[in-house]
């Protein structure tokens, strides 16, 4: 099966490991992700402003280009892109006046857009479609004994209208982990915010959040954490070494993209640039026979 693929900025830079391993895993599962020939930055944060439609132009223009390329569905790996693109479509669909204003502003000659022509889906939804048992069958291994803390963060679950699973008690990542032979760890902080973009202005917020999240996962036995958001990955990973510098009792926890783990389980060794990790995941992966 072919599906349109919207990468977004970070997948081409600091989240290269995510893109490479995700595309390899999808190929193994029989999905060809075709990158859109033209795409723009989505703006990362969905604009919550009701009265300024300008802020919706960037995500909507990408969706229009996707439609013009013949796609009715596009896949996003980055959860922030998913959230922004999906909410922009819903925002446009909800109101005809908005559609009129946006379309007046778009490129001359472009066919008008209603917001429902292209569906935006995330990786976990695609996994559910492929079938969890199918993933287990093609990727799973027995005897791995790796305790993995799945971290959902915000953008896959909130607001409710874009949630990819139950917004307060998701299970999809746990199901995937279980199917491939890992042990998902239950811990209370899995749907909490990592501190998001405050890493720029107020890094103390991210420090506090990372500490709580990592300690919660550690206390419940996690050996690695898996994420799907490049911002969560940066925050949860890079800050840990700084926390350890100020408090030597703090125990670090390697943070991987879910697809990095799946690729290694499937025996796909390439695609990982380990220098993009602050906490080195290689020792635990080697100990478990994955590297």
């Amino acid at each position, binding site marked *: 099966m072919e599906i349109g693929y919207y990468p977004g900025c970070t997948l081409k830079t*600091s989240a290269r490991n995510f893109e490479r391993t995700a595309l390899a895993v999808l190929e193994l599962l029989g999905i060809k992700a075709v990158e859109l020939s033209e795409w723009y930055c989505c703006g990362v944060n969905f604009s919550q402003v009701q009265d*300024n439609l300008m802020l919706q132009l960037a995500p909507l223009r990408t969706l229009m280009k996707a439609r013009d390329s013949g796609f009715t569905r596009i896949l996003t790996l980055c959860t922030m892109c998913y959230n922004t693109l999906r909410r922009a479509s819903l925002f446009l669909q909800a109101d005809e006046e908005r559609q009129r204003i946006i379309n007046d502003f778009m490129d001359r000659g472009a066919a008008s857009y209603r917001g429902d022509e292209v569906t935006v889906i995330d990786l976990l939804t695609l996994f559910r479609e492929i079938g969890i048992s199918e993933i287990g069958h093609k990727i799973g291994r027995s005897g791995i004994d790796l305790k993995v803390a799945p971290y959902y963060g*915000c953008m896959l679950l*909130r607001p*409710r209208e874009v949630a990819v699973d139950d917004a307060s008690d998701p299970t999809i990542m746990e199901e995937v982990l279980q199917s491939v032979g890992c042990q998902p760890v239950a811990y209370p902080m899995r749907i909490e*915010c990592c501190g998001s973009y405050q890493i720029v202005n107020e890094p103390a*917020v991210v420090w506090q*959040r990372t500490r709580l999240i990592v300690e919660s996962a550690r206390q419940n036995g996690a050996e690695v954490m898996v994420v799907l958001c490049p911002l969560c990955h940066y925050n949860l990973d890079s800050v840990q070494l700084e926390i350890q510098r100020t408090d030597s009792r703090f125990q670090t926890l390697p943070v991987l993209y879910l697809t990095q783990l799946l690729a290694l389980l499937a025996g796909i060794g390439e695609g990982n640039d380990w220098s993009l990790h602050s906490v080195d995941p290689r020792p635990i992966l080697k100990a478990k026979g994955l590297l």
Partner: protein
Amino acid sequence: MAEKIILTHQKINGPDAEVIHEISGVNVFACYQCGNCSATCPAVDFMDIPPHQIMRNLQLGLVNEVLNTKTPWICLACLSCSVKCPRSLDIARVMEGCRNLILRRKYEYFNIHTLDSETRLKLPPIALIANFRKNLL
């Protein structure tokens, strides 16, 4: 003793309160002060007043008092408050309304030139762009 607040009809229905309503689309008067938003907020420790007090101040027309707090600039837009509100109020939108009311007057809360180049190169694009979207207009 707490400072005496003089409430007036003009204040409660003042132009700034109206603008926040227009930007956010949220009716702050529907809030009944249960405090769920503040209880669930992951960044509340860093705010000078918690989210439910922002809502209460706006109900009383104390818009300037709200705009002088750090709270809307600490908000992470994680929507924890919005999904937990028993009145289905999107409190994160109110925070966006407060930020935008200020940004529409002075255009920027954050100056990119204050970021040293080492930090700028270290941070991933996703963090920088999100930050600019929240703090600049």
